[in-house]
């Protein structure tokens, strides 16, 4: 196309030619690459199983059955998806600013602990709604401050947020253990060191007709809200500018530090809320069971969803299903529980590798644009 522009530039003229199929081809990249990554990791995992002498087909059939096959497995899946939604948000929101936060697990643990701890003096007198309300706020505050600190460290002292958030996870677990095995240990429970249970009357109930607690619904709503925040508000716009090009954000006088700290605090609050729901809907108390790896699986969810809050929901359910099938796989195939972790790990590595292919595969580009 001999376009008669007065400023001949390659890019403009090729994009001028872009019609609908061209646009479709470009956006197809964002669907095809993650799907390919899923398939490749499935193949790699099949090789792993074959080496163990197990049938890959049998495995995937069991995953399907244990995760999505029956209404019971669906509910099991959804219960596991709920915390993943929150912890994935903990990765996705800072990712808009170009921050890679991998310590959501720490915020979850501390959020759950703070919720359980603040409940202790209130259990005897507070009405349920007040108790749960205070617990939720405590959980969010704890998580928010925790990851907010990571953002502040990054902005004001230049500390790498990825490493800082990971190391702070270990501190969070130590804080939990310190109190649960010490000052806040419930003496009436001789077995596992835990905080005092909030009591079954105070627990968050399930969505009627299911075994799934309300946390999932809250998570879905939160995804919607945060999607709006990141895409329909000046805050989200400013965050996108800062994440896309820090220098441009600075030259526009945008408060980059504030954006970083606030985004991290929001992220931490999401993970803290996951901890709150684990305590208030599942365990009824805080103990070492809070460290269940949801925070780390959330990283995988967010990356698979390309940090889009709306896509996080289906991806969380997908990975929740894989986790839910772990027990069935263990029983039927005589494989250790950690097998599904191997699958998750493989998925994550392949997803990270697949990130490098965006914009490089020629089928998604205008022809010959090398």
């Amino acid at each position, binding site marked *: 196309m001999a376009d008669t*522009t007065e400023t001949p530039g390659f890019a403009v003229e090729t*994009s001028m030619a872009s019609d609908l199929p061209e646009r479709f081809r470009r956006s197809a990249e964002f669907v095809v690459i993650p799907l390919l990554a899923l398939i490749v990791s499935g193949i790699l995992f099949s090789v792993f199983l074959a080496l163990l002498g197990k049938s890959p087909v049998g495995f995937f059939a069991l995953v399907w059955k244990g995760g999505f096959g029956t209404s019971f497995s669906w509910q099991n899946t959804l219960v596991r998806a709920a915390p993943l939604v929150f912890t994935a948000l903990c990765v996705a929101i800072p990712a808009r600013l170009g921050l890679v936060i991998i310590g959501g697990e720490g915020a979850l643990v501390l959020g759950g602990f703070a919720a359980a701890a603040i409940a202790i003096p209130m259990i005897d007198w507070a009405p349920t709604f007040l108790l749960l309300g205070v617990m939720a706020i405590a959980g969010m505050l704890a998580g928010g401050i925790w990851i907010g600190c990571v953002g502040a460290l990054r902005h004001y002292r230049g500390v790498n947020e990825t490493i800082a958030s990971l190391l702070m996870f270990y501190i969070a677990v130590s804080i939990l253990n310190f109190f649960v095995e010490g000052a806040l240990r419930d003496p009436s429970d001789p077995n596992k060191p835990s905080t005092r249970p909030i009591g079954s009357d105070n627990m968050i109930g399930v969505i009627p007709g299911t075994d799934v607690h309300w946390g999932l619904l809250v998570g879905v709503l939160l995804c919607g809200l945060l999607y709006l925040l990141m895409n*329909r508000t000046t805050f989200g716009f400013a965050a996108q500018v800062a994440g896309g*090009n820090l220098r441009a954000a600075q*030259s526009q006088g945008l408060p980059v530090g504030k954006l970083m700290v606030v985004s991290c605090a929001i992220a931490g609050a999401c993970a803290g809320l996951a901890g709150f729901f684990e305590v208030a809907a599942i365990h009824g108390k805080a103990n070492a069971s809070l460290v269940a790896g949801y925070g780390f699986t959330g990283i995988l969810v967010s990356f698979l969803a390309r940090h889009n809050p709306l896509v996080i929901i289906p991806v969380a359910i997908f990975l929740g299903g894989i986790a839910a099938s772990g027990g069935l796989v263990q029983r039927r195939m005589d494989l250790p529980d950690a097998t599904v972790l191997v699958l998750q790990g493989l998925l994550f590595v392949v997803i990270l590798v697949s990130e490098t292919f965006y914009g490089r595969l020629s089928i998604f580009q205008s022809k010959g644009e090398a």
Partner: protein
Amino acid sequence: MSVAQVLETEKRAIGVETIGMTKIFGNLKALDDVSIRVKPGTFHALLGENGAGKSTLVKCMMGFYQPTRGEMLVNDRAGSVPNPRAAHALGIGMVYQHFTLVPSLTAAENLVIARADTPTVIDWGKERKALKAFLETTPFKVPLDVPVSGLSAGEKQKLEILKQLYLDQRFLILDEPTSVLTPDEADEVLGLLRAMTEAGELTILMITHKFREVTAYADDVTVLRRGRVVGAGRVQDLSVADMSRMMIGETEIRESATRVEQPLKKLKLELAGLFADDDEELPAIEAISLKIHSGEILGIAGVSGNGQSELIEVLSGQRLLKHGRIFIDKQPYEPQRDQMDRFKVFGFSEEPLRNVAVPRMSVAENMAFRTFDKAPISPFRGWLSPMPMRRRAKELITAYRVKTPSTEEPIENLSGGNVQRAILARELSGDVDVLIVANPCFGLDFASVAEIRAQIMEQRNKGAAILLVSEDLDEILELADKVAVMSEGRISYQSAMAETDRATIGHAMAGHH
């Protein structure tokens, strides 16, 4: 290649010819049947605007691209260059616009590691002796044992050329080699190269857009426009007007805006003793004090890397101000959003995709950076409404003639001139009191350059106080009312434009004043 071979340098220049070279990218013919003949031992200039196909042509010659059609002759024999290594083997080397040396290594180390046959264990005593012998054969003098980071731009450029000679490349492609040099350094380097071509030791193909360099140093010239050869010949047979007409073609170039005399000059922007560090926390600018009045353009000249970019970064909030203060209308100013709005401070710079735009965001979004948090895009606090953003972008795209397929196109897909026009639209469409501009025309085509310079002049005539940092001395000579020269982080020279001239400024740039 051995050093012994390097030593026999007589009449070793190579001639290169392309025949019907065509390169097609998707729907774009970047090169269309380009045949050029660079005779051995000549200095050949390749002229053309940005996007005319100069880089595509030399990349095909260097083996970075494979031409769709056409072939290349080296010393009249067909030579195929499937990759850059093959080009090197044929003796074709390239010096890039930006330095490719390792800053922490010395010149000697840079030269030795550049060789393809560097041994695993390097005998430095032997290498150094060989290097000294090699240097004897060239007119370029560079200190061998100082880390490259300590060399001046001129020395680095000489070292880049030396590296190619050391690798025994006898056909050198230079991509705008003087853009980082002072006028004196440029003359020295080109003069030496010219002498080597006259001695038959070297053939030069130089990409440039400076007519002065073409007329002073080149034997032959080829002009490209939109991928075609539109003119070629001996430089002595062509006038600058001929060459410039070939380059631009029929495109209308905007007349430069006339300078309107400003009756009342009020002090607008004052920089009082600014200090800042560079990324290595070493002093980058020291005691910068300048005064700019309304309706006045202060041009800051200087060789790249003397603190200009740090100064711009301080003024636009990208770098911490260590000491000193900025005043606008005698009030203290900090580059924060509310103050930028209150004092109507705007700015733009070279490489907008790196400095002031977000490449992945759309044209509409990039155009809204100044306005996204104000009505109508933000009808109430915190909310963002995409419809008015798109509407506003459409108006600006029309008013500033930005060529883009739609408002939603990622801005990185636009050509350089159009990106800069989009940024101009964003920064200049409102009332401007203070304008901070850095190398606004860097890498742009004539039409865009004329347009942008006219816009800057227009803002001046409307009463804006303008700080213009430029590495292009001609730009400053054309636009500025007053000129200051930056050298090693300080203002080394200041004068009203009427009371100085090119040579004086050029000497000040080199640190002589």
